[in-house]
């Protein structure tokens, strides 16, 4: 092999052709790549008007990007007019994407499309965006639902007591058949009388009668033992029934407390009406923030604790950068970004600094602020926060919203519909997300609310009460795992609203309590009162048997003494006769 003389020339031509090709085709190629990957990710039509590459300084420009909302194809989920990212050359040659400045103009959520976009995949329930109207759209629980939610224990315990009483009664019935009847006792007495009334002729006769009497005595003792056994059984049965009754009483008490708690009957309100109405819903909405965590997860350092060992394969970047001990730049780093957001009939600017997933390399957190004032539908909105992945992934968010003009909306449906004709919403709060643990607190105040309802009288009453309020405050806090947060919603109006809304529930609870008491009484009557009769009867029988036994004993002893006297007299007569003859 030798050196090719024209080699340099060939290489220069190749290189120049390559550069020309990149310059001409990079834009369309990136456009096709972006459309393909975005459509794959969102499952609906994505349009990009043009992608251009600028060489000096190196920058990428995207014109008119529209992502169709899969749930509503006539509208976009996100769209923007222009975006420009200027890339630093040297880091780019080393394989790091350091974007000096990113600008996005005309960002819009939910803008109407010129023509409906195609939908390739129907959206699932996960990951839908937080919608205030939907957030408040709940069906108010009725009394039966509340009672069902209370998970009452009493009916089960009452049923158990009934069953136990039946079983015990059956057992006692069986034992009753084993008791000595009055006839058999009379027979015993007759036999004894016959024995004692008969004359004793000699010693052998005496022995035979004593033997017969002893047999009768043994038989009577056996009957007595049976009575004892039944008495014992009865006592056990009494204890078991008493225990079941106690359990029933305890369950009834616990149920009552539970229902009271749900219906907010107790003073101070263990759980507010707002918790019952909005608690589960808020938890569900908060857990949607998990998509943020999942989005950042592939970029988290390996040593960070992972949220869960899900079966889904982890996404892997096609050509990862190795974890170098001193990396000169983060894998990607947007130094400054400015997003011009069209919102509520006006414009807002979001400023972001240091967007990256490797904050330890730049020794700074990602910061963002959003400041909006005097929009047609909103007096002021301020959002600020930071995000950093260091030892843990930490996100902090603070917001202050004032005078958001609520559009007329309808809460609930049909009989439980409550319409909000007008209202001004203000809110302030903060949120901290550390890995997958959330801690959030927020104040919401609804001013000058105008509700009306054509639903049932309770809702009309509720609407009236709400309209009388100058402010409707709500305190919302959430903590715990982001996928299943524990949410607490409190309002100073809880007691008032609870009384109004749950009046029906309270009546039902009271009715249920009295019904329960009546049932309980009848259970006790059939279970215990019947037993008392049994006890009296058994005591009587026991007494009778004991009496018979005692009289037998007496009769037996008396007869034996009598027999001895007769024997003595006979011996005396014989001796006197012999002495007389002598």
């Amino acid at each position, binding site marked *: 092999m030798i050196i090719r003389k024209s080699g340099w020339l060939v290489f220069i031509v190749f290189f120049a052709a390559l550069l020309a090709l990149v310059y001409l085709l990079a834009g369309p190629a990136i456009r096709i790549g972006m459309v393909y990957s975005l459509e794959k990710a969102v499952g609906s039509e994505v349009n990009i008007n043009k992608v251009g590459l600028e060489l000096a300084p190196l920058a990428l420009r995207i014109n008119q990007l529209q992502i169709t909302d899969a749930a509503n194809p006539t509208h976009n989920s996100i769209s923007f007019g222009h975006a420009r990212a200027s890339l630093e050359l040297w880091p780019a040659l080393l394989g790091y994407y350091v974007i000096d400045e990113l600008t996005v103009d005309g960002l819009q959520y939910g803008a109407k499309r010129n023509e409906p976009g195609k939908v390739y995949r129907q959206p699932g329930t996960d990951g839908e965006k937080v919608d205030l109207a939907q957030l408040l759209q709940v069906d108010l629980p009725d009394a039966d639902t509340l009672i069902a939610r209370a998970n009452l224990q009493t009916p089960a315990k009452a049923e158990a007591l009934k069953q136990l009483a039946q079983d015990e009664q059956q057992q006692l019935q069986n034992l009753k058949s084993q008791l000595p009847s009055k006839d058999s006792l009379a027979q015993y007495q007759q036999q004894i009388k016959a024995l004692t009334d008969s004359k004793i002729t000699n010693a052998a006769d005496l022995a035979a009668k004593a033997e017969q009497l002893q047999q009768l005595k043994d038989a009577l003792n056996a009957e007595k033992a049976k009575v004892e056994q039944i008495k014992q059984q009865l006592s056990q049965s009494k204890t078991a029934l008493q225990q079941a009754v106690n359990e029933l009483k305890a369950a009834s008490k616990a149920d009552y407390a539970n229902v009271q708690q749900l219906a907010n009957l107790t003073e101070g309100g263990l759980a507010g009406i707002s918790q019952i109405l909005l608690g589960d819903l808020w938890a569900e909405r908060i857990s949607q923030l998990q998509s943020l965590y999942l989005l950042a997860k592939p970029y988290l350092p390996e040593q960070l604790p992972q949220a869960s060992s899900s079966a889904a394969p982890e996404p892997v970047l096609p050509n990862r950068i*190795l974890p170098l001990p001193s990396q000169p730049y983060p894998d990607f780093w947007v130094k400054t970004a400015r997003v011009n957001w069209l919102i509520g009939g006006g414009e807002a600017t979001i400023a972001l600094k240091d967007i990256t997933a490797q904050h330890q390399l730049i020794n700074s957190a990602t910061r963002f602020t959003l400041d909006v004032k005097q929009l047609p539908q909103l007096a002021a909105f301020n959002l600020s926060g930071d995000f950093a992945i260091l030892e843990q992934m930490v996100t902090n968010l603070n917001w202050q919203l004032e005078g958001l003009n609520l559009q007329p909306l309808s809460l609930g449906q049909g009989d439980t519909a409550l319409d909000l004709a007008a209202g001004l919403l203000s809110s302030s709060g903060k949120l901290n997300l550390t890995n997958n643990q959330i801690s959030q607190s927020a104040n919401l105040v609804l001013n000058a609310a105008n509700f009306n309802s054509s639903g049932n009288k309770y809702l009309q009453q509720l609407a009236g009460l709400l309209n009388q309020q100058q402010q409707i405050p709500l305190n919302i806090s959430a903590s715990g795992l982001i996928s299943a947060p524990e949410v607490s919603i409190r309002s100073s109006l809880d007691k008032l609203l609870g009384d109004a809304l749950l009046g029906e529930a309270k009546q039902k609870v009271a009715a249920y309590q009295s019904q329960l008491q009546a049932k309980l009484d009848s259970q006790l009557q059939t279970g215990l009162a019947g037993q008392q009769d049994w006890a009296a009867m058994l005591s009587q029988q026991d007494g009778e048997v004991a009496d018979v036994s005692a009289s037998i004993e007496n009769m037996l002893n008396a007869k034996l003494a009598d027999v001895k006297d007769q024997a003595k007299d006979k011996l005396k007569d014989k001796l006197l006769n012999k002495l007389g003859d002598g």
Partner: protein
Amino acid sequence: MLTLLAKILKVLNSEASPWQIGWAIALGLFIGILPFGLLSLLIVLIVCLLTVNLSTFIVVWGLTEGLMLLFADPLERLTWQYAQNEQLLQLLANTETLQLLHLHHTLTLGAFLLGALLLLPVAWLAKVLVLQYRSRIMTSVQKWKIMQMLKASKLYALYEKMN
């Protein structure tokens, strides 16, 4: 496909030296498994400067790029697993030239090592196979219809002329 086969046969039957073909195959394989970057340009420069058979190089490059659609992912994972060596990472972090060549990227590093490892054996093996082909099979291949057609074509005449 037929053109591709004809191209290969044409090169094998040409006057190009077995080493030129061997190196073209080895370098084509090397550039094919590498993700496109500065290293690829360096290989192109080497190929341009040395009298490596260009058409063989381009054909093998194209074929290997196709194969890498299948093998890039496992190679990337394998490199990530075995590259967690403190000394290697330190070296990559301290040498900017290596970063300029993108050797701190998993797939690039893995492909570079694999390509460098295969370069000499593949070149030698290809040379041996070309020699074997020419001494044993070439005469019968020359009689194939496809070869006759090829030789009659204008393109072949042009190729002969250029060589």
